[in-house]
């Protein structure tokens, strides 16, 4: 909730600045900004490659304040969330985080996000898109309070193999005991701070949640603590490369929210997105359950899969065919990248039945612009298991002290 009324001329500056803006703006060298959920954030600080390699080999700071956050509390909070999302929230212990999706009546995904449990009746839900209308409508009949707290919390992702070490030096003593998807409350030189072992990189990493007033001090202290460990601020593009390697989905890239699709058949179910493991048919009723049950019985018509694409040219937006001749179209690529760590040409793609089974080969129609001359290549691609990159260190507790 916004603490004070908007200033009179707020519309002259339509994008908000995050509490870290003074630091991120000073560090970026390219003037490459991107609008994210109403905030201006840095897309690339120096170069995507430099930033990406810091994620995989050192430690990075990423300003994720624009991530939309809701506080969900009240006597029915657990029952409410359990009806909202497809996972069983009753099993989420206090001090833990869960990755969830929520669906509309027809079992199509509205958004994905994380649920933090602070107490028996106290939760936080982080989402990609604003959800207040859907969350409020879903609250009908439940004794629950939903409050948007996006602006009240400054959030910073600290990700990379040396992140644990840097956070210890920063002052989070005991952070090494935090297991994946666990929450820890800390006080750093008198300032309260919440840390969760979560992230979007598929690597060792943490996310820090703090008061906006403490943001700049925390940033400076983290930078100082991480200097010897190669700390670097990263933008959204480097993160995107890391998340494709980790096989994570990006809303509006790998799927479009069912609340936003206009054309028939463009919305996606969790079963189609390979998120069937998030759907718990054994818990009490949840939004979309009956439709998903019917879909499960029918079998999915399409599936989001990982692709190992031939060559080294990323198959951005490529149409996929069952045959090299390009006669039968069977899907398209949603995200693609050359993976610097795997040294593979990888992609996430939506593929029709029956071509989505692992091992199946499809053909990607890749267009290349070479000095204004378009070339077209039909490249063989193989359906493979996700994630493409999953280092042991992401789960190791305590992490290696380096």
């Amino acid at each position, binding site marked *: 909730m916004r603490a004070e009324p908007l200033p009179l001329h707020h519309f002259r500056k339509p994008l908000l600045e995050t509490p870290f803006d003074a630091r991120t703006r000073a560090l970026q060298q390219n003037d490459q900004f991107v609008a994210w959920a109403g905030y201006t954030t840095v897309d690339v600080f120096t170069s995507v490659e430099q930033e990406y390699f810091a994620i995989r080999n050192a430690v990075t700071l990423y300003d994720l304040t624009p991530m939309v956050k809701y506080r969900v509390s009240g006597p029915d909070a657990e*029952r409410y969330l359990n*009806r*909202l999302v497809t996972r069983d929230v009753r099993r989420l212990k206090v001090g833990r985080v869960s990755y969830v999706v929520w669906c*509309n*009546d027809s079992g199509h995904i509205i958004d994905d996000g994380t649920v933090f449990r602070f107490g028996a009746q106290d939760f936080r839900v982080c989402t990609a898109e604003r959800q207040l209308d*859907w969350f409020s*409508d*879903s609250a*009908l*009949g*439940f004794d629950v309070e939903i409050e948007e707290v996006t602006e009240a919390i400054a959030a910073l992702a600290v990700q990379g193999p040396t992140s644990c070490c840097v956070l210890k030096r920063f002052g989070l003593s005991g952070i090494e005991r935090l297991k994946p998807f666990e929450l820890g409350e800390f006080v750093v030189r008198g300032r309260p701070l919440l840390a969760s072992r979560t992230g979007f990189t598929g690597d060792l990493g943490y996310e820090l949640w703090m008061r906006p007033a403490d943001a700049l001090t925390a940033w400076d202290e983290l930078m100082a603590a991480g200097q010897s460990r190669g700390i670097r601020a990263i933008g959204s593009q480097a993160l995107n490369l890391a998340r494709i390697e980790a096989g994570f989905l990006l809303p509006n890239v790998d799927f479009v929210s069912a609340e936003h699709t206009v054309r028939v058949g463009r919305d996606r179910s969790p079963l189609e997105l390979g998120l069937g493991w998030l759907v718990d048919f054994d818990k*009490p*009723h949840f*939004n*979309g*359950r*009956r439709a998903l049950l019917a879909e499960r019985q029918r079998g999915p018509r399409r599936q989001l899969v990982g692709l190992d694409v031939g060559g080294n040219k990323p198959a951005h937006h490529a149409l996929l065919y069952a045959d090299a001749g390009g006669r039968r179209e069977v899907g398209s690529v949603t995200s693609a990248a050359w993976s610097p760590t795997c040294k593979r040409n990888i992609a996430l793609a939506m593929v029709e039945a029956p071509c989505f089974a692992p091992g199946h080969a499809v053909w990607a129609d890749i267009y290349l612009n070479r000095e204004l001359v378009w070339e077209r290549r039909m490249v063989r691609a193989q359906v493979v298991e996700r994630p493409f990159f999953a280092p042991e260190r992401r789960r190791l507790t305590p992490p290696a002290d380096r």
Partner: protein
Amino acid sequence: MSAAAPSSPHDVIVIGAGHNGLVCAATLARAGRSVLVLEAAERVGGLAVTREFAPGFRVSAGAHLLHQMPAALIAELGLPEHGLRLAGRALPSTALSEDGRPLALGERAALDACSAADARAWPAFEARLGRFAGLLQGLLALPPPRLGTASWSDRRALGTLALRLRLLGRRDMREFLRIIGMNAYDLLDDEFGTPLLKGALGLDAVLGTNFGPRAPGTVLTLLYRLAATRAAGSAALAQPVGGMGAVSEALANAARHAGATIRTGAAVKRIEVSNDRASGVVLESGETLGARRVISNADARTTFLRLLGPEHLDTGFVRRVDHYRSRGLAAKFHLALERAPVFTGVGRHALGGRLLVAPSLDYVERAWNHSKYGEWSRAPALEITVPTLNDPALAPAGRHVLSAIVQYAPYAPEGGWAGERAGFAAAIRAVLEAHAPGIGALILAEELLTPADLEREFGATGGHWHHGELAFDQFYMVRPVPGAAQHQTPVAGLYLCGASCHPGGGVMGIAGRNAARRVLAEAA
């Protein structure tokens, strides 16, 4: 997988012994199902009930005339054998006028005396509306189709609708499509000049609704009323002996005779769900009753949001139910009279029928204006009956009862009804006095039932007579809401049979019968 406990003694539990619940129960019991009907009130009937409102004076507390229940349904259930008798049939309708020259509706000679032009226009208008009502009549009787399915019955129903429309012929089809979305005010104004005639037809178009005659969709409600009355057959406007409660009693007798059990004073607290299937109900008393199927005669909002609970439903569906409009605007006013009232210029025959206070379309529209802003009408429109003329047993010897449907009374006037009742009652009495001078001196007792009272006494959300507004967006294949428009609900084993379903309110019984047929077809 059937979730019903093996010990569940009933095939079906029907929640609510309103007329639709009773028709449904009787139909199922006649087909050999074991049926238990649970009614919260101490007597059956819901809004079709006769009860004492002053010592020795009884009145139909809700609907006061029987004119929409199909003759075929009455015959099928054998209601005459189960005690239904009519005190009056083919009752006349009269539009009252303060100048003492009321208009007998539907009588060419009477209209001729008012306006020769209107009298000339009337037969063609009546015939045309009759043909359109005939089209709707075909829709009334059957459950509406579902959209977007591959089912043959749905396609056939849609095809039949298109065919019936086409069979009207080019002229009539064009006219039908021109007027069906229109307001009654403009249509009647185009056709006629006599204010009394237009006012009375305008009131018919909006009786029991939350509309004034200028509201779009009121031609539909007018045709709908005509269609239901046509379906009722030869009895047309009828008055049962013993009031509308006698219809309910006959239905209850028919249901019991067929083997159904009816328990009154048994308020359902919630519908039980196990394995995503309705498995029974829990009563307010804490008693649990199992059944393989639960059919709710309660309105959609009560059924889904209160008895079932949103946790068993999806957000989008709950949102639609929550947005379902069911704020009633019709009140009921009852008078115990020392002797028969005298309405200026109204003879004995007309007094035994339906008297309408709607002297012009503007009068009705003005009455509605108040309600738009949460006020009661300063000069309300009325549909009056004096049931004791045809059925003297409703009152002590020589005394009489006046029963009036009063429009418009908001569900929740600003400041609440407590401070407004006396003023509204006085306004109604003033209108009556203007048309029946001296009636005020005859009043022994009176009762005013506002929509809030109707909700409290009969459980209909918003006190809406039709269990929800009858408007295009809550009509036919989307009534009450998409996902529950064909008696089925998102929860297996749970069905709706009340006026929230197609074809809506009025004492018709069609929704109850169609719900029963749906259940029988499924189980077969």
